[in-house]
């Protein structure tokens, strides 16, 4: 209770943000605009006859809800995204970092304080929204309340994510940050739209659409709100971990936190996976997305040049070995392989019980066994290859090394996808195997084909080549660390000051 009070009621950062964002001038302007917006409906309500009035109010309600959605999730996210960046630009950031505010107090102060104006506008528009819902039907009122629950939890996810981007990105990361923000709008939109779609169909009012999660039909509002709060908690964790650190020493998550986040994402993803549809029976797509999540989380736990350099220089860890250097990515890979095996096992289970799968594999009952065996290590090797490549590149002494490395990777995959496009659709196993070194995700296309069994040797060679590539990048990474250690040797012996009235 005391902690909650310190976080919200006695949090000076929250209070400062509210003082600035909710100044009298801003409140008056926002209040005036939203009042005009809210009153626009009155003339039509007064003139319309009862037959059309219900329809008009419904439309008006939709406009209000969408306005609130855009204001809070997009507008609020922009405020959060600017929260730390602007402090850095103004050189006020260091003064906050040097105070005794805990990282959590700072993060919460910005998370709820920076988008305060967006919250205020949303609340202003909530009054006519509730009024409209009340005049429509009692059930509509309940649905409006549910949209607000999802609106606020969804906004929390987006805001925490925006704050995380703002904290860990330097001044040059503007465009990519906005792009990520726009992409992330999609996730909270799903649950929110679920409720909205029910509202738009008067005949469905009262019938809550349910989401199937791990085979259970669950009420969407509660499920979605809980899942969103989970995501918000992970993003907030990343903010708290980094908000008081030197930007060069930032690392989104520790390996343990990264694994937990990947596990959570997989838990959500697997839970929603449509096993019972014809397209959902194979684990290929699920595996691909699961490992992609590990890929993204892996980028978040890569170590920076500054952190490695410090590990190399500090006496207790001066003899930092290859094992400890490879451990972070190794741990992630172990987590990824475990998850992949789990997915394959789930897939095999559904393979045995699912009617669609049985029909599909009726001609070849043994199909899938070999693929299941090969696909996991192949994707894991791909993950290892790219993560070691990114870690190697991140240690190179250039400006924004990770961003450049990621850009090169994107260019590489786009180019190879274009070049090997014909191979991806080919039925010839050898050409597919060859092209897969360049773009392993194309393997998904071959998942259910019998060509696997026809080219077992080639697939094995492809796996070995992929593993060799991963080893090569791991070697380059270790070489880069070795170079970093060499470069850091003292240029000459330390010379003590000649005069020292205050000897150390």
């Amino acid at each position: 209770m005391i902690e909650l009070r310190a976080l919200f009621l006695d949090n000076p950062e929250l209070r400062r943000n509210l003082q600035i964002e909710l100044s009298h001038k801003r409140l008056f302007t926002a209040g005036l605009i939203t009042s005009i917006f809210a009153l626009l409906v009155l003339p039509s309500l007064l003139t319309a006859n009862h037959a059309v009035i219900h329809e008009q109010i419904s439309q008006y309600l939709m406009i209000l809800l969408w306005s609130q959605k855009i204001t809070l999730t997009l507008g609020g996210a922009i405020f959060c995204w600017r929260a730390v960046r602007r402090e850095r630009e103004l050189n006020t950031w260091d003064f906050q970092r040097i105070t005794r505010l805990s990282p959590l107090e700072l993060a919460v102060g910005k998370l709820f304080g920076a988008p305060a104006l967006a919250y205020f506008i949303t609340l202003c528009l909530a009054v006519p929204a509730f009024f409209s819902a009340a005049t429509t039907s009692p059930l509509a009122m309940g649905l409006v309340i549910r949209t607000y629950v999802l609106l606020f939890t969804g906004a929390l996810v987006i805001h925490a994510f925006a704050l995380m981007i703002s904290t860990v990105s330097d001044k040059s990361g503007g465009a990519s940050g906005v792009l990520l923000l726009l992409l992330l709008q999609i996730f909270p939109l799903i649950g929110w739209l679920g409720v909205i779609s029910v509202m738009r169909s008067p005949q469905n009012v009262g019938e809550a659409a349910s989401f199937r999660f791990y085979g259970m039909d669950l009420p969407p509002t509660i499920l979605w709100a809980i899942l969103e709060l989970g995501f918000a908690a992970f993003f907030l964790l990343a903010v708290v971990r980094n908000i008081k650190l030197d930007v060069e020493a930032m690392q989104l998550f520790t390996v343990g936190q990264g694994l937990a986040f990947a596990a959570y994402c997989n838990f959500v993803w697997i839970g929603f996976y449509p096993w019972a549809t014809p397209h959902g029976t194979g684990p290929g797509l699920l595996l691909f997305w699961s490992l992609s999540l590990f890929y993204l989380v892996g980028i978040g736990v890569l170590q920076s040049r500054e952190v490695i350099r410090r590990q190399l220089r500090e006496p207790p860890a001066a003899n930092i070995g290859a094992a400890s250097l490879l451990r972070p990515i190794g741990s992630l890979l172990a987590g990824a392989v475990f998850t992949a095996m789990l997915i394959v096992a789930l897939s095999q289970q559904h393979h045995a019980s699912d009617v669609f799968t049985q029909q599909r594999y009726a001609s070849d009952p043994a199909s899938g066994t070999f693929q299941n065996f090969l696909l996991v290590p192949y994707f894991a090797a791909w993950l290892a290859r790219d993560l070691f490549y990114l870690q190697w590149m991140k240690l190179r002494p250039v400006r924004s090394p990770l961003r450049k490395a990621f850009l090169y990777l994107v260019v590489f995959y786009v180019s190879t996808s274009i070049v090997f496009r014909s191979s991806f659709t080919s039925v010839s196993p050898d050409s597919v195997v060859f092209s897969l070194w360049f773009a392993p995700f194309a393997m998904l296309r071959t998942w259910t084909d019998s060509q696997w069994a026809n080219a077992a040797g080639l697939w094995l060679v492809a796996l070995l080549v992929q593993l060799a590539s991963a080893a090569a990048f791991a070697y380059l990474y270790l070489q880069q660390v070795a170079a970093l250690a060499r470069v850091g040797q003292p240029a000459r012996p330390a010379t003590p000051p000649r005069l020292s009235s205050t000897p150390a």
Partner: protein
Amino acid sequence: MLRLIDLTKEYDVDGDPGRRVLAADRLNLEIKAGEVFGLVGPNGAGKSTTLRMVCGLLLPTSGRVLVNNVDVEHRREEAQKYLGYLSDFFSLYDDLTVYQYLDYFARAYKLPSDSIPGRVVEVIMRVGLESKRDSPIAGLSRGMKQRLGIARAVIHDPPLLVLDEPAAGLDPKARHDLKQLLRGFQGRGRTIVITSHVLSDLEEICTSIGILEKGHLIRVGKIEEILQAGAAPQGATPAAARVVRVRLSAPGFALESWLAARPGISHIASSPLGTLFEFAGSDADLSELVKALVTAGAPLAAVEQPGLSLEEAYSRISKGEVM
């Protein structure tokens, strides 16, 4: 109060892979409570980097910083309790008033709630902003903003004040006010670490000076020792002897050869201003030397221990090296 132990900061050079610069190269320093320590050096010498590491704002490549015996890296928030910091370029929250701004930082430094109003008013008075108490910060002059920055740095009454170029861009009156303010803090036993390019200001307020070049502390000492070191002839060992200048009223006396024959005298150098030499001896020994000089028939006009300004001493000591 402040200890730097092998403090090192390595940077990579953009556009030159593999090349690194040492903004701080194994700095070892101890500053005792109550000292006003001036850190001087050319632009790019590593002063701001060092101060940022002291405050825990920058991760050192190696080494440690202890503030009041608290490790800044491992117990950051506890160490920051003892620190007040003002950077060279900074902004304030223009939307807030002077009072609101200081109130925010007083709470951020976790001062007891009931003491905050009194403390804010006290600090506002100390920096001379009483008339601007409820004015928006946006309307303050540069000098006032600087004073407000200092007020922020001292709002929690830290024992150590770290000021990076606090006088930059201030007019003479504001600089004078700033010096008065810092003297007031020093008078109350606070330790101050300050960088400035206005060496005459530092000379007036500092008790010790460190000269930083290319990340190395090339001289550290009490201000009089630094001045003496700057005044010493090239090659002299200032810690072991004092520098004396003798001026004759007329030429004709072979002063250099006479001095060279005397014990305890070394590093003799003549200039139009007189003959400088290093003398290892007590005041009584110096008195005997002067008597002997007069007895030998030297037309003695003056015997003095030359004093240089800090600026002159710095120019002589510094090689002007930057990274």
